[in-house]
Each structure stands twice: as structure tokens, then as C-alpha cells.
């Protein structure tokens, strides 16, 4: 029975932390706003208040699902890549080229082709740090950070100088993609675009891949204990490369889905940190694909809540962002996931003695 009370204590701790987070956030709002109640309500409930806002949450969640997955996969392989941002750009770029310049295909052929090219682009860009790490022992943190800069600059160059729509005005973008080849809204009047389904499908695939296939088994073993994996005959270098390539593919897919679902064309600098948000998502999710769904939704919800609070009240943007950050911190404190896992093992073992 001791366990029961320990767990209750733990649970109280988590609930306490959440309440503390909300309380601190609200205290700040109280200090700064003349309409604190509206602000709080706006932040917490407005994201669900109408289909428009909720759809916006889903749209924000979609790219986070991809980048979160991308990083979950490499992290599971024990590779600390920070390169999703660059891979996302490259994938968006290669996909957009096909989207903009290949015509005359039916959407059923065109869209998969676009997605495929984005996947290839991201994957190839992931190949670089993968090979550098596996075969040249070059640290992936450094190489991926550098490759991010190189990717955004490179894509920006081509966009501004080679593939620019002449009518794009002050900021370069490609020609608009034909309507049929975009990922449209799936319900009229509901802003969420069908990229969400691609994302959720990808979550399922990545989940199966990681936990139900031999490659996933190899990736996870390499991440957990490379010495053991090596001893078991797993070709570590290949697995490392594979994981980064896979991660790049996922990030690239995220990039093109964002282009097809939101922007309608490739725009210069369209992603500001989606790849880095993905790191937070993956870590929040403990690198588990299903956790990525929860974490992305939570993150998107916070962002939309913050924006709505800013739009509906006098709380300034920066403050909304600070409150979001606090919430993320408090929620990831106390290890909710560890708690849940622990509760599960205790339930299974019944917390009994070690007599064997």
C-alpha cells in the first residue's frame, strides 16, 4: 500500500506543477493586462472555441508532427541531429520544383510524385551528415547545424535567382502551384488541410517501422547500446546513415506538406524554426511516435492560444510567448511519461517482492 501513496504523491506533484505553471502564467497576465480574465480564457479555451481556431491548431500541428517524427527517429538511433530545419528546406525545394514545373499530370499522380521528390531531397540532404558521422566520425551536432545554414542560403539563392516567379514582388517565391495539386481543406469552412492525414499516416508508418520491423529494431538497438548492436552483427554505420536519411526524408516531407497545404508555393524563408521545434517535440514525446502526436498537438495548441490571446486582448506577443515557454517547461518537468510508465510497471508487477 506504500506504493499507492507514493504514486499519489507523484501524481499530486504533476498536477501541482501544471497548476503552478498555469498560476505563474496567469499571475503575469494579471500584472500586465487590464482584461486578465478574457486573456486567460482566450489562451486556454479559444483554440477550441470555433472550427476556425481548432482547424488552425491542426494546421500548426501538422508540420510539427513531421519534424517531431524526424527527430524522434534519429534520436532513437542515438544520433543527435539538429538538421531537420535544413532537410525540411531542401525537401520543400525539391518537391516544389516538381510541383511547379511538372504539369499535365493528374493530381493522383502529381501529388505523390511531389511528395516523393521532397522525401528524396530531404533524404539526400540527410545523407551528408549521416555519412560524415558514420564514415568520417564527424560530429553530427556540428555538421547538421552548419548544413542548416547552408540549406537555407542555398535554397534562398535558387529561389531568388533561378526559380523566382517574376510577379513575386519584394520577396521571392516560385510560381504558384496548380490548385489541383495542392493539399486542400478536407471540410469546407474548416481550415485544416489534408496534409494532416498524411502526417498521421506517417506517424503510423514510423511507429510500425520503429517497433514492428527489423530496421526499427536495429535503429533502436544502435541507439540504446551500440556495443551490443555491433556484437549482434548489426551494421552500425549503415543504421546510423539510415536513421539520418530517414529523418531527412520525414523532415523533407514536412516541408513539402507545409508548402502544399499552407503556402501554395515555395516562399523564401517560409520555415522559421520548425526543425528546432521538432527537437522539443521529440524530446517531449520521449522519441515515441505516438508521443509526438500528443506533444505536437500540445505545442500547436499553446501557440494558437498565445496568438489568440494576443489578438483578443492587450497582452503583448512576447508575453504570450513567455507564458507558452513556461508551460512547456512545467509540463515536461516531473516526467509525466516516466510516471505513466512507472505506474504501468507497478500495476503489472503489483509491486511485489523479489522472491523468485
Amino acid at each position: 500500500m506504500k506504493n499507492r501513496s507514493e504514486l499519489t504523491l507523484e501524481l499530486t506533484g504533476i498536477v501541482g506543477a501544471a497548476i503552478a505553471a498555469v498560476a505563474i502564467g496567469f499571475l503575469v497576465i494579471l500584472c500586465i493586462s487590464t482584461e486578465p480574465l478574457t486573456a486567460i480564457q482566450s489562451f486556454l479555451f479559444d483554440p477550441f472555441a470555433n472550427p476556425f481556431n481548432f482547424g488552425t491548431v491542426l494546421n500548426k500541428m501538422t508540420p510539427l508532427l513531421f519534424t517531431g517524427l524526424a527527430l524522434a527517429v534519429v534520436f532513437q538511433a542515438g544520433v543527435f541531429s539538429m538538421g531537420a530545419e535544413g532537410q525540411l528546406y531542401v525537401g520543400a525545394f525539391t518537391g516544389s520544383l516538381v510541383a511547379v514545373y511538372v504539369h499535365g499530370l493528374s493530381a493522383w499522380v502529381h501529388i505523390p510524385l511531389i511528395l516523393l521528390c521532397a522525401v528524396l531531397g530531404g533524404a539526400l540532404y540527410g545523407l551528408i551528415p549521416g555519412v560524415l558521422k558514420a564514415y568520417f566520425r564527424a560530429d553530427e551536432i556540428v555538421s547538421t547545424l552548419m548544413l542548416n545554414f547552408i540549406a537555407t542560403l542555398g535554397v534562398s539563392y535558387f529561389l531568388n535567382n533561378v526559380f523566382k516567379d517574376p510577379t513575386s514582388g519584394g520577396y521571392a517565391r516560385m510560381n504558384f502551384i496548380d490548385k489541383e495539386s495542392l493539399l486542400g481543406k478536407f471540410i469546407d469552412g474548416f481550415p485544416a488541410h489534408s496534409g494532416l492525414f498524411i502526417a498521421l499516416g506517417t506517424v503510423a508508418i514510423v511507429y510500425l517501422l520503429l517497433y514492428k520491423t527489423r530496421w526499427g529494431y536495429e535503429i533502436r538497438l544502435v541507439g540504446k547500446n551500440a556495443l551490443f548492436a555491433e556484437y549482434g552483427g548489426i551494421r552500425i554505420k549503415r543504421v546510423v546513415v539510415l536513421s539520418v536519411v530517414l529523418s531527412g526524408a520525414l523532415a523533407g516531407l514536412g516541408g513539402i506538406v507545409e508548402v502544399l497545404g499552407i503556402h501554395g508555393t515555395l516562399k523564401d524563408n517560409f520555415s522559421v524554426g520548425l526543425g528546432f521545434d521538432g527537437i522539443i517535440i521529440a524530446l517531449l514525446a520521449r522519441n515515441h511516435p505516438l508521443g509526438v502526436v500528443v506533444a505536437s498537438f500540445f505545442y500547436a495548441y499553446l501557440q494558437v492560444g498565445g496568438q489568440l490571446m494576443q489578438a483578443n486582448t492587450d497582452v503583448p506577443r512576447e508575453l504570450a510567448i513567455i507564458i507558452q515557454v513556461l508551460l512547456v517547461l512545467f509540463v515536461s518537468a516531473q516526467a509525466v511519461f516516466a510516471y505513466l510508465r512507472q505506474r504501468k510497471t507497478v500495476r503489472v508487477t503489483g509491486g511485489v517482492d523479489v522472491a523468485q
Partner: protein
Amino acid sequence: MLSNLWEQVINLSLFAVLLRVTVPILLSALGGLISDLAGVINIGLEGLMLISAFASIAVGSLTGSWVLGVVAGIAASVLISLAMGFFTLRLKVNIIIAGFAVNIFGSGVTVFLLNVLFGATGNYNPSDLDKIPTVIIPGIESIPVVGKLLSGHNLMVWVALLAVLFCYYMLYRTPYGGHLRSIGEAPDAARSLGIPVERVQYSALMWSGVFTGLAGSYLSMGMTSMFVKDMTAGTGFLALAVVVFGNRNPLGVFFGALIFGLATAVTTMIETTAGSGVPSQFVKMIPYIVTIVALVILALRKHRKQLAMSGAGA
């Protein structure tokens, strides 16, 4: 273009540029290094630097004293790193999440306070700021080469160079440094010897705050005399790369920062040379490509050394 560059090497102006652009990376990389060695990787360098840049100039301009400004910058940065410690060491938030949180927080809070304190949006450049002084060494100043090499640099340049030595001695010659490194390498061993692991990690984060704080002060009160929102523009991430790149020791970090600084300085030269014809985006890639190439060369050399030693090469 090449001759132009050569001219600048000869007349040592490239050297001055090199020092200037190296300092913020070097200082923040040292900050990153110490926490990294203690097993608490600090992704929040960027945010810490930004907060310090802001606090420095805010206090510096309000009090009219660069010393107080720098102290305030360090204090603010230390405070935030301790908060980071609280979240990661006490509340067990993932250290990387905490680091990103500090970056986001730093970007937001500086803009917010800028507005509250100065009613300014986005930037602040007080006209009569007491900048961190430049060190003119009397006597030496007029000697041809030596004068230019040694005199006329910002005080923070010297601080940064001393910081390398300081870190080296602190990490490798004091008991504290030993404790810190043992925690990063074998935390259980350290704990079993009664070394207060968490407390040392707190202190490591604090050092992180001190050095990143110096870097921030230098950005707003030495290199420039202004605060511009997000003015760090990725320096913290470059510093992070330099930590790894520099083989996780102070001297390595020093050379890593120098290589990066040199690439940046040369890039600046190319970017300001007429008719180079190379698209600006590609010029901007130079430091990043140089870093990757250097990284690979270093890794290969290390590897080859191992192979040569094991006789399994050839």
C-alpha cells in the same frame, strides 16, 4: 580581390577584424564548454547572450558606467542559467528543452523589457553610452607591427584571451575543475565520493552564464553600442558547434573559435569587395563549409592516428 585580401593581411587590419569577430563566439563557447564538461549541455547560449546584451546596455546606459553594465549583463545571464539549473536539476526538465526555452524566453523578454523600460520597439541605441574601453598600450602603440598587434583592441578581447587561460587552469588545475569534469564523465563515481553533483552542475551552468554574459556585454557595449532584437543571430549555436569542434577543451575551443572567426573575417572581406561576382548566399556559406571541412579533416586525422597506432592501417 585576392591582392586586396593580401594587403589586409599585411597591414594587419584583418587581424583586428579577426579578434573582434572571434571574441563573442569564443566567450560563449567557453561558457558552453564548462557546462558541457559537467554533463549539462547548454543549448541556451543564444538566449543567455541576448539577455546579457540587453541587461548590459540597459544598466550601462542608465548608470552611465560600463562596469556596472557588464556586471548587470553577467548577473542577468547567471540568474537565467541558474533558473535553467532549477528546471533541469530540480524539476528534471530535459536540459535541451530547457535550453531552447531559454532561447525563446531571451528573445521575448528582451523585446518586452525594451518596451517597458525604454518604450522602444526592437532596438535601442543610447547616444551617450559608456562603452567597454579600448586598451591602448602606451609606448607599444607606435611600434610598427607589434603596436598594431597588441594595442588598440577592446578590453573584452583581452578578457576573452585571459578567459581561455582561466578556464584551462580552473578546469585542469583546481580541485573544483576536477570535480566538474568527473561529474561530466562519471557522475556516479563523483556522487559516491560525496561530491555534490547537482551543486557543481549548478555552478557549471553559472560559469556558463558568466562567460556568455561577457559575450553578450561585448556585443552591445563593445562591438557595437546598441541593442537590436535578436542581435545574436545564431552566435550561440555557432558557439555550441565550436565546443564540439574544439574537442571539448579550452585550447581546442580557442582554436575552433579562431578558425571560425577567420572564416568570418575573410567572408566579410569578400562581401565588401566590389565585383566579386559570387552570389552573396554562397559567400555567406563560407564559414559553415570551412567548419565542416575542418571537422572532417580533424576527425580523419584523429582516426588515422588511431589506425597508425594500431598498425591496422595501411
